[in-house]
């Protein structure tokens, strides 16, 4: 129950940040790909810069979680082709809809209901990947 509230609350915080920072705004994503604003680069850059510090501190000091367990950070699978091809396919969708998988939920909650279409087809896309996975280069 405690954990349910914890994860749900982190989600609420994330949703508020996506709206208040405008990272979920289609206009901001469009502007980013036009290189006409520092806004999105600032957001991602600052998040990653602080993220590197947080992640490295955790790893070097073997820090423990809120629950007293050792924090495990599993490395990403070394699938370079999949990262590049999949990343490019996602990039096409990101620039078209302005939405990443996180902001999809945030924007539906904020009342932009056409994102429901994006959501349903994102599920279909994930399903098709699962179907085709054995035949794709990784």
């Amino acid at each position, binding site marked *: 129950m405690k*954990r349910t509230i*914890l*994860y*749900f609350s*982190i*989600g*609420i*915080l*994330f*949703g*508020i*940040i996506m*709206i*208040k920072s405008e990272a*979920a*705004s*289609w*206009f901001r*994503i*469009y*502007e980013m790909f*036009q290189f*006409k604003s520092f806004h999105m*680069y600032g*957001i*991602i850059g*600052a*998040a990653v810069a*602080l*993220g590197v510090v947080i992640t490295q501190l955790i790893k070097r000091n073997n820090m423990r*979680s809120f629950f007293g367990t050792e*924090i*495990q*950070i599993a490395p*990403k699978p070394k*699938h*370079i082709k999949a990262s590049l*091809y*999949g*990343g*490019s396919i*996602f990039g096409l969708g990101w620039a*078209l*809809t302005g939405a*990443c*998988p*996180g902001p999809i*939920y*945030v*924007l*539906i*909650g*904020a009342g932009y*209901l*056409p994102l429901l279409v*994006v*959501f349903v*087809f994102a599920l279909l*896309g994930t399903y098709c990947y*699962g179907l085709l996975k054995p035949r794709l280069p990784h």
Partner: protein
Amino acid sequence: MAPWPWYVGGPAIAVVLFLLLFSEKRFGMSTNLKTMCSMAGAGKKIPFFAGDWKANRWGLLVALGAAVGGFIAATYMTNGSVGMIHPDVVTELNQMGISGAGVEFMPPELFGIEALTHPKTLVLLALGGFLIGFGTRYAGGCTSGHAISGLSDLQWPSFVAVIGFFVGGLLMNHLILPYIL
């Protein structure tokens, strides 16, 4: 009530990363799409979706919270003002028939309720959604899993994935969007 500048938004995202890592989890939103496919029974026929989806229930809670957070922020934490969009972008979008830049949070032509009655817009939204779902799972992560978590952990595949995000994004933004919007 005004939108946050990047130097508030960026560090706030790092706080989310911090909270998830210290809650024994990773910051990654696209896995939820796979979890939901597994929940719906896709694992019966496709091995990729097999396994215990209940281990990822926490992610669904984060997604549900994100929707609630979106509602709270849009309803109670904004006075309707949005950040300035570069004037060149505003002009360009207006010429492409997209209004609201610098005035509204989202373009009404694509995300207003009336968009649901325009077949062309529906096709674009569906196509975009499909590419997001297919691409993120193929790449093994999205902006949160690769660009934030992965780069923070100095992961080489994440760096490649982020290059991919921009290859696809720039292609869509500069070469495709002007013809399909």
